[in-house]
């Protein structure tokens, strides 16, 4: 006990105390306390501590399917033609293992795509690189609510994919119909691989070139250098991205909701995240209607996220990645490509960008043409009608301003809290720092709807009449839901940067008489600037995309609603003519703003930070 307090005392200098208290304050007050209700509901049955609800879940036949159904694909001739059906009758392992299967597969694919793309962008020079820098980020942009319609138009039996590859190019002798888990994996991979890409890119860029040069001096060439030097040195960044992709895939609702919208019920709904969501949506009148096993399931999902995150972390921290000097704009290892290499790079990048951006491209087409209602696989006429409808609508501007305000304030908070927490975790030996590390990482695994309900119950009851009252100021609370839900992007990225930077650089400053504050501000922060900015940008973009808490809290005061709330209002409005296209037009606006913010910050920061990943 005394050694514990002694250690604590030694580690808690003023910088650490401040950083620790700032992060703990935000996380406890805005994440843990509002979630208390969920935990209580999950663990208490009839007023007593009990595992009743966990048992209820495990006895749910829907939950674990044994033996699993492994029927991935089959061919069938129908009166509409010959089809290859992928995923509609399997695989199915039950809700629990389906989620794990999807999350693992999506993580693996995202690593493959993200690392390859990041390596190309970090190490090769080719025409159009700046273009790819921007378009590789497009798949991250938000297309909530509209993506179901786009998925139907593209992947449906008469959709664009079958039209191009079967009807026109005749490359396929059959049509393809993809649904179920494979479809979830497809949609999630194309929207989440940029997370790995961005994290890997900042890692590749920070690698000290002399490391690779030494390997080459010693005779290693090509792939061997990559496998034995480059990749291991970049591992912290890749692992950070992978951990986030795993957790975000576990919690994701965009893909299952989009696929249900396009194809109706199916195995794409047999996922933990969707199960929780449908319990809340299916109830009538009150959250009392939600069975407590739903909260137990949320606890299970959190536990999986923590377990996977900690094991990835344990694996990664077994080694040393820190480098004394860092790569950067002074001596970048960038090569030109031969003609064959150039062709391969263009094929890979173009294929990736076009495939991965189909939801975003589809939204733009929906917003500007007759694609939504002409009943054909391709648009036939351009129309400015839907975009121009936005101009006449004063609420559009207001909701955009709201989104920008909340997201940028949340980003500032995330930077303060995320950098603080990551610095404490990477540099101090505080007991229990693994818990803090999990705390800044797993919030993505908390279902948004549960957090929203938690906020409603907690802040409306205990902060009635204050600026924290959701009935008075839902917008203000949204800043904090965005902060806690999106902080992992910042925290993980910063942590990866610190792992790659040798502590001796800071120790040198301390030896020369700088205090901890000065060392932190003038040595540590500049060295990890790329990671701070990359993480901050991811957090910002994903804040603009946030749906669950935005919808629930804003409904209490619509004029404080962000743009995602406004989109939900448009798309669910009484089935008026052209609804999908108007919502798509809003989506175009949202994506444009996100792109502008990314490009401007890239431009502004490029002068100071070498080869920013954006």
């Amino acid at each position, binding site marked *: 006990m005394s050694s514990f307090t002694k250690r604590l005392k030694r580690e808690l200098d003023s910088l650490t105390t401040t950083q620790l208290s700032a992060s703990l304050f935000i996380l406890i007050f805005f994440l843990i306390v509002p979630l208390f209700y969920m935990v209580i509901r999950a663990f208490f049955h009839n007023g007593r501590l009990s595992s009743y609800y966990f048992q209820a879940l495990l006895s749910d036949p829907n939950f674990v399917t044994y033996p699993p159904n492994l029927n991935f694909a089959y061919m069938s001739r129908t009166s509409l033609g010959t089809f290859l059906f992928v995923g509609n009758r399997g695989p199915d392992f039950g809700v629990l293992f389906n989620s794990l299967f999807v999350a693992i597969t999506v993580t693996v694919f995202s690593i493959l795509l993200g690392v390859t793309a990041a390596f190309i962008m970090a190490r090769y020079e080719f025409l159009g690189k700046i273009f790819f820098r921007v378009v590789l980020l497009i798949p991250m942009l938000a297309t909530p609510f509209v993506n179901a319609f786009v998925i139907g138009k593209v992947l449906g039996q008469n959709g664009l994919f079958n039209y191009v590859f079967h009807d026109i190019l005749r490359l396929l002798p059959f049509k393809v119909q993809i649904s179920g888990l494979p479809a979830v994996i497809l949609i999630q991979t194309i929207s989440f691989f940029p997370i790995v890409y961005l994290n890997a890119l900042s890692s590749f860029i920070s690698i000290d070139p002399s490391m690779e040069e030494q390997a080459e001096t010693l005779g290693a060439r090509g792939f061997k250098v990559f496998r034995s030097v480059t990749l291991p040195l970049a591992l912290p960044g890749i692992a950070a991205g992978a951990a986030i992709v795993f957790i975000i895939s576990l919690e994701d609702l965009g893909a299952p909701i989009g696929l249900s919208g396009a194809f109706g019920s199916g195995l794409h709904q047999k996922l933990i995240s969707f199960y929780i969501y449908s319990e809340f949506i299916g109830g009538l009148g009150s959250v009392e*209607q939600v069975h407590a096993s739903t909260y137990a399931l949320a606890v299970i999902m959190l536990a999986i996220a923590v377990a996977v995150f900690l094991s990835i972390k344990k694996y990664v921290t077994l080694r040393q990645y820190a480098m004394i000097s860092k790569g950067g704009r002074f001596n970048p290892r960038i090569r030109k490509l031969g003609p064959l290499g150039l062709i391969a790079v263009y094929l890979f990048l173009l294929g990736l960008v076009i495939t991965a951006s189909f939801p975003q491209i589809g939204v733009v087409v929906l917003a500007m043409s007759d694609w939504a209602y002409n009943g054909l696989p391709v648009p036939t006429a351009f129309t400015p009608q839907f975009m121009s409808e936005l101009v006449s609508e004063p609420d559009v501007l207001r909701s955009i301003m709201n989104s920008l305000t909340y997201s940028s304030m949340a980003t500032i908070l995330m930077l303060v809290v995320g950098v603080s927490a990551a610095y404490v975790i990477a540099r101090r030996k505080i007991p229990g720092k693994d818990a803090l590390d999990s705390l800044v990482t797993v919030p993505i695994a908390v279902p948004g709807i549960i957090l929203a309900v938690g906020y409603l119950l907690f802040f409306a009851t205990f902060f009635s009449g204050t600026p924290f009252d959701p009935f008075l100021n839902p917008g203000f609370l949204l800043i904090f839901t965005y902060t806690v839900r999106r902080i992992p992007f910042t925290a993980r990225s910063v942590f990866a940067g610190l792992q790659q930077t040798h502590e001796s650089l800071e120790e040198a400053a301390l030896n020369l008489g700088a205090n901890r504050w000065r060392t932190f501000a003038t040595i540590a922060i500049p060295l990890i600037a790329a990671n701070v900015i990359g993480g901050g940008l991811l957090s910002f973009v994903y804040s603009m995309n946030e749906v669950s808490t935005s919808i629930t809290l804003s409904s209490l005061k619509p004029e404080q609603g962000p743009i995602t709330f406004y989109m939900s209002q448009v798309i669910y409005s009484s089935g008026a003519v052209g609804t999908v296209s108007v919502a798509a037009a809003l989506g175009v606006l949202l994506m444009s703003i996100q792109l502008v913010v990314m490009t401007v910050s890239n431009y502004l920061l490029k002068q100071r930070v070498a080869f920013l990943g954006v």
Partner: protein
Amino acid sequence: MCEGLVVKLLRRKGVSRGAIFAAVVVIVIIFAAALLMGGRRRPSKPTTQAQGITLRVITRHGYDILDVAKKEFLASDLAKEYHIVNVEWLSVDPGEWIDIIKASANKPGKEIDVAWGGGPTLFNLLADKGYLAPMTSQKVLLASKDIPDKLAGAMMKRFDSQGRPVWVAAAISSFGFTINKKYLQKAGLPVPGRWIDLANETYAKTLPIPSIGTADAMYSTSNTRMFEIILQDYGWEKGWEILTLIGANARIYDKSGLVRDAVIRGDIGAGTTIDFYGYTAQLENPQVCRYLVPKDGSIVNGDPIALLKTSKHQEAAQAFIAWVLSPEGQKIWLNPKVNRMPANPKVFETPEGKKRSDLKAAYEHTLSLISIEFSDALASSYEFSLIQFYHWTIYVPHDKLQQAWEALAKAKLEGKISEQKFEELIDMLANPTKLQFKDPRTGEIKTFTQSYAQSINSLLFNNVDFRKKITDEWYKAAVKRYEEALKILGS
């Protein structure tokens, strides 16, 4: 003074100036944000007559209707007479209505005055739970006198024990199919004319690609209504057989709007929709889409408006309700983007109403097609049972149901099995009174008869644990019989 003391204390404890500075920065950021937000929109003080009244309305209507309604109402004489200067819309998900109404009641100035739109199921729930106040204002009674109490059995008004209205229909709808003519033609499928047609094996020809669409009862109140019509039209057993086979033929979506979207996109040939979805689809693409009212039964459904007990402006709130029900207010439904049928037919006599002769024709056509005597009391006596049973035996195990039905229907279409065997297997797949499960209260083996469904109806809503257990049983039993049928067909 006080702050200085705190700083001194902290300094003495070994906290550096820098640490205190950083802590202050974090706190300042939070409170600057608080002030900015709070300052921009100060909590509104309880409205008084002098300042004018702000009405708060919880609603399921879309922004396009609400924008128009707010503008028109605030400009009306009624709004001026009652000093109403603003209407705030709360677009809340049905799953949270009661929570939000309850929580708002404890916030002075934030109480909700009116509930508008969301279907009779939701409003009956509000009435049963005691959230609705009787409407006593002469203005409401006058405005609603042209709206009948019942239309072909379906409630247009609900009264309390003293005969005072607690909700009144503000709009009406019928139910039917939206079809995609091109799809049906290409797939060689007939145009459905009756509900029972959708259950026919002909539509299984294209499986595993479904050619028709419907929506889950749990998420779509309009489809729940359609299912209730079918059950009353054909009786419990035959009715469930039709529901199950429609489900087996169909793609089942989780929002009614998605059914319409799928028809417009050409993913399916026919979908069950509420009338205004059908009419707008028809307007959007007249060459391809059409709305049809089934010949074997359609009713009109009232979409209510009601006064909430929590309202602190009962008179002003009723003025708004009276306006919505008056011919003036009913004009909002005639907007060519909305195309809803008004509850008050007097609106067709206004100049704007005369311009929508198409909607008037549709209105009269709908009324002329009402062919069944619908009992609201019967429908609500088993409504929650219906919703849960549909969800857990048709929607959730849908992949299994569809696979079994595809095998069965194709065997029949290809002449591989006799008519009798076909009927036998349908009975096995779809007869609710042959689905055996354990009642979680008693452990007895039960089947899903109408009287059993009625006996557990309120329990399903009020006892969440019971609901979870019995729906697990239903799901297991349903999967079992779909797999058995498939096995028989395979051998």
